């Protein structure tokens, strides 16, 4: 199946059981990943599901094909946390397009997913650890620097070390399920036809965007980073424990940080921002937005367009800034 693995991982945390479901039919019947995710939410509604999903072009050659999402329900209301950076790509390359997590575990656990295999591992040893300590542990335990993870922090879900947009309770859902982290390493590939590949190469790639930062913060920038396959380079690395002008890698263990959600920097205090990222404490706390308002502000779009972009796995900021909102680029 082009662009997709056609597979969904179903994890029952109560029974500690893992199942591999075929979802080609589901994918073919909907517009894209977000819609498929919602269908999975309905199908597995008996288990208070969390659905982690990807879009059509996630992990493909389509520029900024980096997006994924988490879906859940709370008090009858639907919530969605957009995921960018690298987790959705790494997840899709494990051989699964979706992950449905049902029920809660009787004891703290973490998931370890790679090459079509999912292990439910104990996580008691992680319960006292902050996000950064947890991420360090996961990289060491699995013997690979390239693993990506979603980690339940103080009051939010963190994408690896660098936070994220969770101010609508996704981290809280993880905690309710006694789920400390979902860790992935994708070593597979996605099937893409030569014709699609050639079309994707013609999609405009954009260029580095202007950053909306104070002069003081700009002085701390060591380098610019981007999500998977994106040319906008939205994310500076702020070097606060070493000289931002050094060309080589810092020898300090924690020289600085990236913040996936610019709202961490709203008070202009980088040390405070770094501590919040370490602990997994989103500055906006817990709100009741269907999609976090800080993400809508970051992308500069309405919620409906976010959902459409999540169908395709493409960043909405890229979609507006580079593709000018032209959906014809999605026709393959």
């Amino acid at each position, binding site marked *: 199946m082009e662009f997709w693995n056609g597979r969904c991982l179903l994890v029952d945390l109560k029974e500690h059981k893992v199942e591999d479901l075929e979802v080609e039919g589901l994918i073919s019947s909907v517009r894209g990943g977000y819609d498929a995710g919602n269908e999975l939410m309905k199908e597995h509604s008996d288990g208070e599901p969390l659905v982690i999903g990807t879009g059509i072009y996630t992990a493909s050659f389509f520029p900024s094909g980096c997006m994924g999402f988490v879906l859940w329900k709370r008090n009858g209301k639907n919530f969605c946390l957009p995921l960018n950076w690298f987790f959705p790509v790494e997840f899709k390359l494990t051989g699964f397009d979706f992950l449905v997590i049902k029920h809660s575990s009787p004891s703290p656990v973490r998931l370890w997913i*790679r*090459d*079509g*295999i999912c*292990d439910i591992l104990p996580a008691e040893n992680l319960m006292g650890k902050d996000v950064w300590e947890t991420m360090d542990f996961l990289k060491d335990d*699995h*013997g*690979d*620097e390239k693993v990506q993870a979603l980690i339940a922090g103080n009051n939010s879900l963190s994408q690896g070390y660098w936070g994220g947009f969770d101010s609508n309770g996704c981290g809280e859902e993880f905690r309710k399920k006694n789920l400390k982290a979902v860790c992935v*390493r994708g*070593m*597979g590939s996605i099937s893409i036809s030569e014709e699609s590949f050639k079309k994707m190469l013609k999609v405009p790639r954009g260029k580095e965007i202007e950053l909306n930062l104070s002069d003081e913060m700009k002085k701390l920038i060591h380098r610019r980073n981007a999500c998977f396959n994106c040319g906008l380079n939205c994310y500076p690395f702020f070097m606060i424990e070493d000289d931002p002008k050094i060309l080589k890698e810092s020898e300090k263990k924690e020289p600085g940080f990236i913040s996936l959600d610019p709202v961490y920097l709203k008070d202009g205090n980088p040390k405070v921002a770094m501590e919040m990222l370490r602990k997994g404490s989103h500055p906006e706390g817990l709100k009741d937005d269907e999609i976090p308002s800080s993400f809508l502000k970051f992308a500069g779009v309405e919620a409906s367009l976010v959902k459409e972009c999540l169908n395709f796995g493409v960043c909405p900021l890229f979609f507006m800034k580079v593709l000018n909102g032209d959906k014809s680029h999605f026709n393959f």
Partner: protein
Amino acid sequence: MDVLSAMMRMREGERVFMDETLGIFSTDADALQSPVELRIPSIGIYTGKGASHSWLWAVDTFEKYGLDLIFPFSEKEVNFIPHFEFLFVAGGDTFALADGLGKDGAEKIKKFVKEGGIYLGSCAGAYLVLYTSRAPLNLFNFVPVQIANFERELPPVRAMREKAFNRYACCFIIHPVRDEVLIETSPFPPFFSKEKISAPIFGGPVFKEPEGRGRVLARFSSFTERTVFLFDREIAERVLPGKPAVIEWRMGDGAFYLFGPHLEHPSFKFANSLLLKIIAYNIGKMRKRNSLSDIFFKGVPLKLPDSIRRLVSDMFMKAISIGDMKAFWRIGEKYYMPEHIPVFVRAIHKRMFKKRIFIEKEEMEIIEESLKVSKEILSEISPSTPEEKVEALISSLKDALRIFLRAYFRRGEYGALKLSQVS
């Protein structure tokens, strides 16, 4: 149509013919003067003691072009040799190859070639069968051709000292260059035309002129931007250009094809075309077998269990992560580096998603046990890991791979011998 396209089309099930007087390929036999139909021959690949990782290049290349009746075997399994039509012995430690194969292996190889089999020797596999007085190599004195990269005194080494030479009694076998070189083919069968082809050399022989039943099929021509000089360039210029790089030596009904460069390396497709031409040309000359050996029909169709996939997956990640580690270990005459380890693990990793392979329960158990041994060593590997441990790691990986690849390339289960497999 070139030989690469011909093989790809044969892989897709089309009938493909070679003109054995002109060396051209077509799906239309009537378009050729003396057509011979191509088929997939059985190829035994030696993977035992002394074999490094380059035999996996041959597996990848043969599989890519549809020559997938492949059977890897170890030094304890030389009894399988008569079952093959082609025997591929790749790079590694020549002395260890000889020691592993031993007298029994030598006799089997000699009988195999005399009775019409084709021996393909690359790098150490080529050195193995050249004349020498040194035991145990002297068990394999089949091809009376000497090497030209032999010096009584060692010139100053410019780079990569551990790969630049091997001691041989009081003299030295030197390797003046590594990586890409250009070789020029001879305008007669099996290559049929004169052309310059790039191919990689990693310590393989530079031959002297064969006499008698020998022919030079290709000569070293020149160097490229990618060529790495391990000695002064003038030494490389003296030793290689003009000297034989690929030779044929006929014995009985069969032949030895020996190459200094690795024609089987998957990143050099034009070098691969030379290897495929040798195979295609000899298929036509071989007596047709009535049936495929039953070694290709065994086991029951099963999916690799999660326990094995888990081991391979976790090992693959670890193997990739140590690829940049600054270390090397000397095992016999061969130096292994961390970047060699992922080559072995990847060979299973990229194939383990195949839905069904024909395998026996006991074989699954051997694979799993071997992988457990490998994983335990790999999890603790560091620059200070003793050579014996690294040797045990490579050995257990090869054991797992040998059994896995046999199952992967099998044609069917017990009793499923199909005459349609042979034309």
